[in-house]
């Protein structure tokens, strides 16, 4: 028995004449690890931007846990349990790695309006931040400014910051973009193991089809702003429409 966690209905976003998201019906089931694929410019990031509230939809609705969140602010959506990471790393560069995560925890606990306590003395938060960093293999970098991390570590921290919100639904926009092929699998190993362990529903945007097939429960393929196909990894692997438009080669034997 699966339950629908998030659902978009006829969602539209156009940039001028370019319909980046064109009447998309997109569904996420609770508990799944969904891969969102599609060539460059297919509209994947725009879809996530709409759902997370960075962009306002031109038309259509977004329903999360049965509630219409289409017009809600970013803040309200985060409180509802939607979090995201970014394709281009988006961190607090001058804060330490630990503070990047700690700030997120403070925000989640509603403590950011506190002007009268010393952040570093909040051991509950510090412990949780340390725990998160351990999960992502970043514990040894805790005291370093985020700007000093390597690209791979920055991608991980970007995910860790989103994860620290303890969301119900986590969007990860290309968690392995910009890192070498060799580093991709280790990053995905870390990310997926955390997501599975904590039973977080996740949507991962990813270009590398090996990774997509290896890690996801279900795949949604987009093309030119619309959903081209969706199904299990096996179904997608056999789907000729997908393989010809997106992968550009016949399915491997």
């Amino acid at each position, binding site marked *: 028995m699966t339950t629908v966690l998030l659902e978009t209905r006829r969602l539209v976003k156009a940039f001028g004449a370019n319909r980046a998201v064109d009447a998309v019906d997109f569904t996420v089931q609770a508990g799944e690890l969904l891969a969102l694929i599609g060539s460059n410019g297919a509209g994947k990031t725009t879809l996530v931007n709409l759902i*997370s509230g960075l962009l306002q939809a031109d038309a259509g609705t977004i329903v999360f846990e049965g509630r219409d969140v289409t017009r809600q602010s970013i803040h309200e959506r985060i409180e509802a349990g939607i*979090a995201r990471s*970014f394709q281009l790393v988006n961190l607090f560069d*001058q804060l330490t790695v630990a503070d990047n995560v700690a*700030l997120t925890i403070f925000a989640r606990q509603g403590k950011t309006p506190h002007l009268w306590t010393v*952040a570093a003395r909040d051991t509950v938060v*510090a412990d949780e931040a340390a725990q998160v960093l351990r999960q992502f293999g970043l514990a040894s970098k805790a005291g370093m400014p985020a700007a000093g991390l390597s690209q791979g570590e920055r991608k991980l921290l970007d995910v860790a910051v989103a994860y620290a919100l303890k969301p119900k639904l986590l969007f990860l926009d290309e968690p392995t973009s910009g890192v070498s092929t060799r580093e991709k699998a280790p990053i995905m190993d870390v990310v997926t193991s955390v997501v599975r362990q904590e039973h977080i529903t996740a949507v991962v945007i990813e270009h590398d089809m090996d990774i997509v097939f290896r890690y996801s429960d279900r795949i949604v393929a987009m093309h030119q702003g619309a959903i081209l196909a969706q199904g299990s990894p096996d179904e997608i692997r056999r789907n000729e429409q997908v393989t010809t438009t997106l992968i550009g080669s016949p399915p491997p034997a």
Partner: protein
Amino acid sequence: MTPAIRPRLLSRLEVGGGLLVAVALLAVPLVAAPFQTITVCYGLVFAIAALGFNLLLGYTGLLSFGHSAYFGVGAYVTAELVKYLGWTSMEAYVVAGIVASALVAALFGIVCVRYTRIFFGILTLALSQVLWSLALKLFWVTGGSDGLRVPTPTLLFGTLAPTKDKMDFLAYHYYYYVLVLFAAAVAVMWLIVHSPFGKALQAIRDNETRAEFVGVQVRKYRWIAFVVSGAFTGLAGTLWVPLNGLTTPDILYWQFSGRIVFFVVLGGFRTFWGPIVGALAYNYLETYAVGFTVYWQLVLGLVLVLLVLTLPQGLAGAVEALSRRLRGAPAVA
């Protein structure tokens, strides 16, 4: 799981330097001539203003060119209390100054924090100029370009009245009064920037979008920072008037905002202590440089240009970097 060791909140340099400075500041009236003590007192007052300003620049990433407005409100509110109500109690001035400047900042802030970068800068400048031109034009209230006189107030709820020799009173009783408030302001600001709220401001400074996406309501927090910043600067304005004995529209003019910018850049806006160092250093320089040049603005501008080109981290930043080098620690990127 072992809990993290309690992190050290102040570095050894900060503790040592702080103690030294505290002793020195306490000793000033005992060892220095009244004139020199009053100079230091001005420096402490400006340091409070600079602390407030830097909550915006250093911690929130907003460069205000209109902080003269809040300093001026603090000063003028005091003068109006004298003029219309005949109040003499410094405590009343302080409360009124903080409240009034916070209110004005709250109002102006609604407008200003909708923008960042240069837009924020020009808006703050424009609004401060509104107050300046009003202070000039509404002379029946503000005394116009002559300004308003403020006699030396009574301290500690009227129990400590000014002595015959005004200079001695300012250089002793009033100096310690300001020093206590300065220490309180430093402590409060230190707490604010190290609080979760302060971390949220720094997050906004570093990356507004991401701050929004971890659940920080960026505009609201900027506004709160703006109000706090205005209140600190307003407190400075209130403390400044009895020293000067007079408030004129000059302190509302953009050039005075420029001076506050200057303190902070001189000391270094990337550090907590920078603005304090800058304000004290500036004040020392001014007292001795004004003697041989009336073109003080020119000197300030040139030094600012040089600082930006050659010492962008300011005096305090340079000291910090130096001490890190001496200890052999790696430089922070």
